[in-house]
């Protein structure tokens, strides 16, 4: 033990490789599991059984400026039709959305205005964290009430409770009746907490003054049947919108489940890559320990010979070196664990990851390094111990 302490620099160097390796593995596993957990949460928030029908962008006709950026053929009634005609559709809701500047007292911010039915709130998993959602009665009465997301709360109200206050879109005042449960970012990268939600009728008649809708949210009965439902919705809408064969459809259907799965697949692949690199670092660190232990034993062959001459058995020698290298490796692995957890924690605080403490990875890394230390210490020491003491003493 004193021998190791006597070479602090050499000991530190040999241990550092393993330390970095273990730390790297822990950080990678922690971050990738944290990212995966975030993703799963979002998937749950989004629902894996959701189709979003969006009006397609309006085609540009040369020379003529566009009146509206999108096709204007979707109607609220199309949503009801989808549910009636397709058994695989559990529910459907029409929606309009547009960017809007919203004011409160002297402050303003640009956010997304979303108008939908109470069914739409359910389908999109919009809930009230404080306050309440609007009900069918308010929806029917074109009430000027809104539920706002936390990004809007932060931008306009700071720490003040927005419920009960009046905000304005243009000249139209709205009462904030609730703050929405945070939903995070959707697969397209949009911040779903940066919006204000109002009843569909209010949006169409009082704010936007349009007869058409931008989107239809369709909830399927199961994610397995979503592909089939997508096809059926295509059929229904083509028929209702009188789309001729050969002409492009005035709508686009987004299969959220597919999007999320793709994102998950990509994330998985990246994780595997990152963890592989980290494992490689771990192996290299282990090799570092092996190298140092081999050199150490070679240098200490004379010492081994002396100890044998003084009465150490081969078992004593093996034990001594195995203990030394195990402690060395365990210390490196342990420090790596601590370091890795600290870095992972810091990264989780700063980045879009949750902190997941990868106990299994940490313990595996620690055990692997301890075992490595064990194996590495035993073999060269055994060889030296098998020499006749006088041979070992000669170096």
């Amino acid at each position, binding site marked *: 033990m*004193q*021998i190791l302490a*006597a070479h602090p620099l050499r000991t530190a160097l040999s241990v550092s490789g393993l330390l970095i390796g273990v730390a790297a593995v822990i950080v990678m596993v922690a971050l990738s599991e944290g990212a995966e957990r975030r993703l799963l949460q979002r998937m749950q928030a989004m629902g894996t059984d959701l189709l979003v029908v969006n009006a397609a962008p309006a085609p540009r006709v040369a020379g003529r400026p566009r009146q509206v950026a999108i096709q204007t053929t979707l109607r609220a009634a199309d949503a009801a039709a989808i549910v009636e005609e397709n058994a695989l559709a559990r529910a459907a809701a029409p929606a309009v959305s547009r960017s809007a500047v919203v004011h409160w007292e002297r402050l303003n911010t640009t956010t997304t205005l979303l108008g939908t039915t109470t069914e739409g709130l359910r389908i999109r998993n919009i809930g009230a964290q404080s306050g309440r959602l609007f009900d069918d009665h308010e929806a029917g009465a074109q009430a000027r009430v809104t539920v706002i997301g936390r990004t809007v709360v932060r931008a306009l109200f700071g720490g003040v409770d927005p419920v009960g206050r009046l905000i304005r879109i243009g000249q139209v005042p709205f009462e904030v009746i609730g703050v929405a449960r945070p939903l995070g970012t959707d697969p397209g990268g949009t911040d779903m907490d940066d919006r204000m939600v109002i009843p569909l009728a209010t949006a169409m008649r009082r704010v936007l003054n349009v007869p058409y809708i931008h989107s239809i949210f369709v909830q399927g009965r199961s994610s397995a049947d979503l592909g089939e439902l997508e096809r059926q919705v295509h059929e229904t809408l083509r028929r209702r919108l009188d789309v001729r064969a050969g002409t492009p459809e005035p709508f686009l259907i987004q299969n959220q489940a597919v999007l999320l799965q793709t994102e998950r697949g990509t994330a998985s692949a990246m994780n595997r890559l990152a963890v592989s690199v980290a494992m490689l670092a771990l192996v290299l660190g282990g090799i570092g320990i092996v190298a140092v232990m081999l050199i150490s034993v070679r240098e200490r062959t*004379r*010492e081994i010979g*002396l*100890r*044998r*001459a*003084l*009465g*150490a*058995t*081969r*078992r*004593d020698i093996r034990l001594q070196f195995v203990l030394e290298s195990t402690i060395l490796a365990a210390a490196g692995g342990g420090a790596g664990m601590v370091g890795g957890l600290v870095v992972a924690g810091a990264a989780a605080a700063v980045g879009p990851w949750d902190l997941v403490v990868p106990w299994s990875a940490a313990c595996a890394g620690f055990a692997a390094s301890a075992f490595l230390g064990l194996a590495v210490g035993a073999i060269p020491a055994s060889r030296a111990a098998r020499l*006749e*003491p*006088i*041979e070992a*003493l000669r170096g």
Partner: protein
Amino acid sequence: MIEAEGLARRYRKGPVVVEALKGVTFGIRKGEFVAIMGRSGSGKSTLLNILGLLDRPDSGSYRLQGVDLSRADDDEVSAARNRTIGFVFQQFHLLERVSALRNVMLPLLYSEENADAGAARAERALQTVELSHRAQHVPSELSGGEQQRVAIARALINDPALILADEPTGNLDAESSAGILDILRRLADAGRTIVLVTHDRDVAARADRLLVLEDGRITADDTIPSSSRRRPADVV
């Protein structure tokens, strides 16, 4: 104490096979102080290594306190090295980064008994070699003579029946050499069995009995007259 019969040992030196011992037979009784003298290459160190269980003979038998350890297992041989024999090397072979006291205590690590009283025993051993005042120093802070005294104290700590010394003064100046030989003489006078290997006639003269080794064989085995066992007159 020691019965050696027909000891032979050869080893490889590159392409050549050297026959270091060619059949050595002798006995040593308890309490004797024997010097084995010979030129370099005579096989004297090889013989001492075999006596000290640091090497095995290729043929012949070696009985220590009546026991032939040539077919003994590692545990038995290690126990004999630890308890029965105390070896003093020409190059000292102390642990570099460890204090004199802890160097002396090293054999206790491999003794089966509880080493609680170890430090006290080590201190007594250092007293025997008159080095108590340097107990906490590391070898690099000690002179050659002091280091060899630490080595002797280490050899004494388990109260061995046999002390073996391989050219103990080979790396020392005249004054330190004299000091070491005085210590060995004192131990012999107190009844310890000591076997000393040397190429120096003056060193050999401090012992009771002289074995001469030439080319792997014993060529002489004489008692040394007591008058020459005392320290030779100092030459300025």
